[in-house]
């Protein structure tokens, strides 16, 4: 350790670029989460549907997303689709891999949340004279949302952490940007230490925000 000198100035000079990278990280995870949620709802419905075709499509999607490494899916989007002449940019390949995985995991979360609501809740609401829309709007979905809220925040944090794999396909999010900056300055240790701290701060901020929102929305009665 005694013959290594830390040079922090290079890192401070490059800080705006790191922040841009961090922004891209957050950007890609938020976007992949939003699209993932939409697909996950469809997949959850498919998995619960009576139609065999929908069930199998949803099932295959979910099982592939849950049982293969994220890196494999990113490579698949980046190199694999290239064989078909579809050349995706690094951003799009990481984004689509994250969407694919998020949708698979969230679909199971949604299905579990939906099935955890007792059927009696539905019957009781019906017997009070509510129509189907009102039953879901006021009875089923609020209860369900409470149960899937924490798994959803976890999935979001997971997306932020896994978007760091963009480093391997040359995407310019936080870790990719760090890699690029350290390759021109050779201050690998300093740059990656700062990147690690930034990831830590981002995840903590996300969890803090999620807690605050939960307190506001659920008014302290979160299960």
């Amino acid at each position, binding site marked *: 350790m005694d013959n290594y000198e830390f040079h922090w100035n290079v890192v401070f000079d490059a800080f705006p670029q790191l922040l841009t990278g961090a922004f891209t990280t957050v950007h890609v995870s938020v976007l992949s989460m939003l699209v993932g949620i939409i697909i996950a709802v469809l997949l959850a419905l498919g998995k619960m549907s009576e139609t065999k075709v929908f069930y199998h499509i949803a099932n295959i999607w979910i099982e592939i997303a*849950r049982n293969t490494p994220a890196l494999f899916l990113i490579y698949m989007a980046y190199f694999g689709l290239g064989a078909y002449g579809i050349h995706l940019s690094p951003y799009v390949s990481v984004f689509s891999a994250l969407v694919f995985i998020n949708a698979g995991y969230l679909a199971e979360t949604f299905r579990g949340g939906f099935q955890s609501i007792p059927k009696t809740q539905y019957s009781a609401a019906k017997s009070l004279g509510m129509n189907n829309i009102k039953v879901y709007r006021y009875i089923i979905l609020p209860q369900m949302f409470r149960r899937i809220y924490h798994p959803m925040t976890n999935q979001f944090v997971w997306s932020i952490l896994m978007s760091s794999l963009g480093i391997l396909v040359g995407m310019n999010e936080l870790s990719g940007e760090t890699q690029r900056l350290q390759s021109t300055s050779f201050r690998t240790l300093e740059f990656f230490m700062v990147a690690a701290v930034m990831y830590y701060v981002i995840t903590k901020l996300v969890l803090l925000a999620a807690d605050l929102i939960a307190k506001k929305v659920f008014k302290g009665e979160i299960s």
Partner: protein
Amino acid sequence: MNLFTPLSWNDAGFILTGILNTVYISVIAIVVGSLLGLLIGFIRAESNKTVNVFLGAVLDVLRSVPLIIQLILFSTFIGVMGFPLPPFVTGSIILSLYTMAFMSEVFRSGFNSVPVSMVKASRSLGMNYLQTVRYIRIPIGMRAVFPSWIGVALSVIKDSALVSVIGYMELLRTAEQLISRTQQPLMILIGVGLFYFMISYPLSRYGKYIERKMEI
């Protein structure tokens, strides 16, 4: 002149090395991570709030920083310190610590799930503290969290693919090298994906099966 050579049977040995390396590092990480996690989980279940908050904060760092950054950081760090280690050792250390961070949470909730009355009953039967831990708390607590343990173990197998960044020749890296030589990405990648799927899918089904059996 053709720069690329097609995939041939000679590559089978190369891929097999990759598969074995993936299995090695996953098994090491799961075993070491589980043992350390059991220890840390026990300490966390036993200790007071101050120790818990401190331990929790340390473990939280391992869970809040991406694995890939941890790997690069650690391998650079030991290089700078003047003790460069082979990628396999570096990868095993970091992957084990990462596993430990998750396993300790799993085991901690396992220890907490054992009813206090059961522990008291065993003490009243004349068991000493260690016997209670050995014969009551570990067997009963660990059985309750077995499905979660499988879940963490599966995610470790999948995350072991990331050790390729520091130069360890695991399955995905061998695949990547074959792709750059043969230019047949789709076939190779599908094969690799199938391998991961074949390990992961039966285990996750088994985990779900156990979970369902325990609910009843």
